[in-house]
């Protein structure tokens, strides 16, 4: 049993009162005073003390600043833009009035369409000038406070008017204050080298006449998250995200626009591919676009399929991951597929699923979903979601749900949004696995057994989406880049295009038959109600007895009417 489940609301309240008292205790001195922290702390302390005298004082106040430096360069058709070096800071205020059992953040049930309280963001200069920082924060806290008091009035009335919620958990759980001030490393980049690389890689596409448009870009984002709270939390968390991406597109003769996007994400420039690998990636993308342009369209189909590692990872992120995010379990507008399934089988017994933001790398690959503390200042924790197919737990923010009273460090947000429970690194592992060759053999056996003309292999994907609410069908859509038909008679695999993988969660999970011993990593960004956050998913290849594909949305434009202008050295231009 998850120890968190032992925490009841009463204990949560007691613990929170204890943490509120901590607000009067000054955090330990910073060995190297950070001017940003000094200004934020000064205003946070001042505002907190002043607001305690209000009739409805806040019981929790957190200030967060996201400091971003983005250096980037991109190229198209062999020519580059300009090396950019952009810096920006955004400030967030999270403030709670009422009590941990019922506060202003509680969802208003049956609310009107435009009744959301606007969140207060505050302007933070990129220069550490205390007075300007403090003024911005003062406005942010004041705006937040007045909005919170107004919202609490509505929450209380809503609670009185509506029937009792199915999940009557409190609104906020205790968590010990955290202090960690990590040194901000200086990430050195050679703008000329990256400019030369993206230009050279971009020029690769000029020798592929079927590629109409393309882009090669390098971007290095150095983030520093600063979090300070009335509980005494003080965090300075530097983290870098680096991406080399290559994309190309064309329009097929039937009007279908085909985009292929490949990229490498890492936590440092050193994780990026070298010149040879980058050029090889560009050629591979160009060739894939060329091949896809000629590939036949596959009709809607039901049958067995293999989801290769990245496809399987996205599949799990969409289908399982979003449905085990804690706040969805008490939101009665949500589908709540798994809310009552703790302790019950939800996946085949050979599969385990954890979400582990503490993990920085897998098999030499940096994971996008790694972080040390979440956006409520809680230390990230490894969460066992599914053990041997049995559902064990949920991803939790500090908003408790029935049976899960505390956070496990999964509150995440894009700056400007309110944090909710989100995925970090979702890792799917198999207790029993077979080689990929064997998995393919099993696929063909399934094709034969089901009397299908072919099976499908979903090789790579661009992304996907899912609906978790009750109004829309509780379905998912995974968008593959390339899909292969695998024939039972030994014919070579055939690349096809024009389909998305669709389905509903419970039905699809029941049909997972086997996993391979190879795992792959999907690094990306996930968008949901708290904005876009970096995530990773790791999964083995999976054999599924039955998947359904539907026709992909498509444009109808003719391909470009004139041939592309080509370099003089490759081919005479056709007029």
């Amino acid at each position, binding site marked *: 049993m998850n120890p968190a489940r032992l925490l009841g609301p009463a204990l949560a309240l007691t613990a929170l009162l204890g943490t509120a008292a901590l607000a009067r205790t000054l955090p330990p001195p910073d060995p190297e005073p950070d001017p940003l922290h000094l200004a934020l702390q*000064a*205003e946070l302390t*001042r*505002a907190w003390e*002043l*607001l305690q005298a*209000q009739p409805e004082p806040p019981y929790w106040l957190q200030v967060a600043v996201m400091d971003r430096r983005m250096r980037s360069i991109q*190229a*198209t*058709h*062999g*020519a*580059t*833009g*300009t090396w*950019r070096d*952009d*810096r*920006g*800071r955004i400030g967030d205020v999270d403030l709670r009035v009422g009590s941990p059992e019922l506060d202003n953040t509680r969802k208003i049930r049956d609310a009107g369409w435009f009744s959301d309280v606007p969140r207060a963001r505050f*302007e*933070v*200069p*990129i*220069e*550490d*000038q205390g*007075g*300007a*920082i*403090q*003024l*911005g924060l*003062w*406005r942010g*806290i*004041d705006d937040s*406070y*007045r909005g919170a008091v107004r919202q609490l009035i509505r929450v209380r009335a809503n609670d009185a008017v509506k029937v009792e919620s199915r999940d009557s958990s409190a609104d906020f759980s205790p968590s010990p204050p955290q202090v960690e001030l990590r040194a901000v490393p200086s990430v050195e980049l050679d703008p000329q080298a990256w400019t030369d690389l993206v*230009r050279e890689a971009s020029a690769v596409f*000029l020798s592929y006449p079927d590629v*109409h*448009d393309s882009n090669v870009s390098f971007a290095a984002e150095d983030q520093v998250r600063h979090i300070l709270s009335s509980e005494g939390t003080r965090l300075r968390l530097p983290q870098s995200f680096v991406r080399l991406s290559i994309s190309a597109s064309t329009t097929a003769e039937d009007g279908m626009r085909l985009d292929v996007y490949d990229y490498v994400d890492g936590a440092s420039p050193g994780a990026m591919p070298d010149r040879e690998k980058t050029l090889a990636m560009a050629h591979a993308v160009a060739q894939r676009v060329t091949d896809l342009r000629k590939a036949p369209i596959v009709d809607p189909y039901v049958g067995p399929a293999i989801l290769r590692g990245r496809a399987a990872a996205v599949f799990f992120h969409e289908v399982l991951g979003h449905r085990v995010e804690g706040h969805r379990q008490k939101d009665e507008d949500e589908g709540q597929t798994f809310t009552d399934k703790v302790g019950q089988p939800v996946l085949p017994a050979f599969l385990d699923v954890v979400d582990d933001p503490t993990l920085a790398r897998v098999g030499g690959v940096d994971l996008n979903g790694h972080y040390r503390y979440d956006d409520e200042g809680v230390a990230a924790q490894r969460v066992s979601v599914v053990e041997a197919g049995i559902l064990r737990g949920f991803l939790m923010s500090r908003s408790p749900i029935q049976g899960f009273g505390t956070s496990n460090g999964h509150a995440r947000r894009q700056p400007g949004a309110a944090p909710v429970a989100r995925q970090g690194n979702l890792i799917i592992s198999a207790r029993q696995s077979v080689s990929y060759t064997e998995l393919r053999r099993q696929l063909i056996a399934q094709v034969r057994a089901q009397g299908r003309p072919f099976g499908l292999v979903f090789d790579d994907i661009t992304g996907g989406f899912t609906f978790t609410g009750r109004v829309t069908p509780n379905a998912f859509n995974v968008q593959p880049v390339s899909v292969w038909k695998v024939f039972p008679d030994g014919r070579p695999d055939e690349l096809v295009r024009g389909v998305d993988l669709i389905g509903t969660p419970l039905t699809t999970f029941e049909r997972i038959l086997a996993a391979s011993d190879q795992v792959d990593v999907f690094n990306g960004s996930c968008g949901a109600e708290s904005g876009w956050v970096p995530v990773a998913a790791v999964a083995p290849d999976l054999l599924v007895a039955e998947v359904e594909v539907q026709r992909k949305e498509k444009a109808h*434009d*003719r391909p*470009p*009417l*004139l041939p*592309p*202008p*080509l*370099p003089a050295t490759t081919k005479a231009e056709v*007029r």
Partner: protein
Amino acid sequence: MWTLLLLGVALASPSSSVLVQAAEAELARATDLRLPDSPPPYLLSYELLDGQVASVEASFGALTSTDQGPYRVLRVEVRVGDYALDNGNFEGSFGERSGTTQRLLPDEDDVLALRREIWLATDEAYKGATEQLSGKLAAREGSTRSFGPDLYRVEPLVTEPVEWGEVPAEPLEELVRELSGRLVGRGLEEGRASARAWQGARLLISSEGHRAWIPTGYAVVRVEAVTRAEDGARLRDVRSWVVRDAASLPEREQMGAEVDAMVDWLVGLQTAPVEGDYLGPVLFEGPAALELFRQLLAAEISGTPPMELPPEDVGEGGQVPTARIGRRLLPLGWSVVDDPARAEEEGLAGGYTVDFEGVPAQRVELVEDGVVRRLLMSRVPRQGMEGSTGHGRSLGSNRREAMPAAVRIEPARPKGEGRLQKKGLRLARPTLQPYLLVVEEMEPPAVSEDFQVAFSGEGPLPGLTRPTRAWRLYPDGRREPVRGLSFVGVDRRVLRDIVLAGRTEDPVGVMDAAPGSQRFGIGTLGGLPASWAVPAVLIGELELSGSPGREQRVLKMP
């Protein structure tokens, strides 16, 4: 120091030959564009905007953002049909394409890369133009209306390449730091300064024979301050400077002094009374007079007809007419002239010799003896007008429309400030208020927070933005600042009720867009430069309503 920094800037070498080579090569190929059963393009036009831009912002003396670098964007316009009837001037349903596309271009001078971008943009524009023409023909099917031509012919323009200077961010950073730093310690809630400088050229190459380099440039600085009145009302003021380039900005001391005066005013306003419902004479001075004319007059002198709409979007009433020749707009004896070329000679914001469509700018005598006699025109035809007056401009990929550029308004018999005040007080005597309301400043539309006015901007009778600096002038000469004012039911007709006017003041630069709601959406530093020279005016009767604050802050300022 300011001047020295700017003088130290090296000239950038424009990549004229590469851009021309790429555009000409693709223009030559594009004449072969053909869709089955559809007309080929009869006109192809490439605009390549190439230049350097720096944008910076600071809050209370500390930078919040800074950005500097090259900017290169391509606008392709393809027209199918002919000058009499083509795809232009028609706005299809939401999301439908037109014959105009825009793409960012690589900054490197690579002919092949530029050609590929032009190739893709041209292909999309041709397909869009074909769809747009079909939409237009379908919309006209069965119509009993008669329609005029779609495009004026013009003489092709050929000019030599031009050069432009680099636009360093550092001097602008220093400037906004200093100006916003002056807002510290004055009890202001918000205090920011932002600036943008742009220098570059527009290369126009078309199948009509245009091969023209048109220089462009401006610098805009805005300082915004916000404080709160005792009753919680949000009090906001903005100072703006719009000039030809950063070197033409006033001395920093002068700008600083103007910012200080703005803050002094705002601080004084904290305890000022809220104006009640006012009905009486109003004296518009300085920047407020400029806004009065700019907001009420621009649509009346811009001759571009509105875009044709599908019948289902128009309704029974049809589209509302805008500018009209022969309409009395101003009192007898008044004149309005727009002369961009003269402004260019004088180095004013809004000055140019050739518009975005390659048409030489003409001096247009718009209003004579108070009556509209001519209109500003782009290449979009209008019944009764002979051709473009060289006023075709617009933002981004929008249709090039007639936009005021360098307007000068001359009253019949200008009077001194004292006469205006005296007359105003006399007019106020029979009203309930024993004072004259003087408005010295109003929110520029670009930074207006008055959404009611912003959303009324499409029709011919737009309202006026709120006064930010107004006072009561009492018969004994006493001046009392008032706050919380908004105009009620104001439209162009009030201009005919001008009782007296002062002398036309020096031209002042503004950032603007074509008349309509676009003006409210250009952002703090966006838009196109223009200049207006206007007199102070006394209007016999206007209505204003006052609104007090609703909510005070809970926390004291740190």
